[in-house]
């Protein structure tokens, strides 16, 4: 693994003054080059963690959505994000800290983003699977 920090972080703006969420200043802190079968864990002071693992064919972007991820305080959700002037909405996977749902809803509400589906419980995921693929053995 090679971590190449941006030092100082490269600061860039997301959004415009007219955007519903205004301008957000983001910091690009660097680049993580993982080799296949290497992983790093993203942690927060509040105790949440999640692993990103590299494989020869790509990445595990999340640990198990209905097991390890919620056990470490994070809830996955598929979100639709319409953009002004763009007829095609963008979709993202967010991980929401348990207990911060109200803040997350406020963030979405200000920007006009909508939850497509929570992907955080076995029941929700199996229902999604059934709806998409029909009954499975």
């Amino acid at each position: 693994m090679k971590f190449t920090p941006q030092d100082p972080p490269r600061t860039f703006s997301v959004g415009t003054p007219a955007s519903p969420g205004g301008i957000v200043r983001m910091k690009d802190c660097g680049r993580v080059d993982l080799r296949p079968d290497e992983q790093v864990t993203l942690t927060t002071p509040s105790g949440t963690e999640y692993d990103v693992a590299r494989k020869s064919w790509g990445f595990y972007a999340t640990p198990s959505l209905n097991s390890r991820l919620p056990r470490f305080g994070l809830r996955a959700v598929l979100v639709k994000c319409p953009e002004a002037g763009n007829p095609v909405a963008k979709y993202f996977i967010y991980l929401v800290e348990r207990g911060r749902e109200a803040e997350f809803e406020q963030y979405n509400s200000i920007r006009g983003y909508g939850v497509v589906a929570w992907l955080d419980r076995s029941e929700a995921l199996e229902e999604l699977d059934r709806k998409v693929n029909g009954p499975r053995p």
Partner: protein
Amino acid sequence: MDHPGLPDPGLELGVKFLPEDPPRRFAVDQPAAVPTPLFLSDCGDLELDPDEQVTFATESGAEYDVARKSWGYYATPSLNGRLVKFGLRAVLVRDEARKYVVLLVERGHESDFQKYLDLEGYVIVCWMDSTEALQALEATLAR
């Protein structure tokens, strides 16, 4: 590892990287039918502050950003925009124990990926890699 951690506490760097040096190698939980154990190397912990991001990259040029917000993370860039542009295709899969994960497959590595799915007993629930696929998923879920 090529970076031993923070080289100088006086630097402005926001992200905290706590390396496992040497990386901790561990066996991955797998179905009993898998003949060869798979190992992962845990390379350490990264701690981002809100509104900080890092980019995960491969030598072939695929990359994606993870951004921390006060309420959690953007675990992916836009699935039908930036992620695709940088050579990665998101897919939801489940294993035999009905655990679900989001994987990002490098374009051009699909046959390698399919072999991995077969080996691990994963099945694809749905691809989430194009506007059409995501709109269809949304419509299906709304029913």
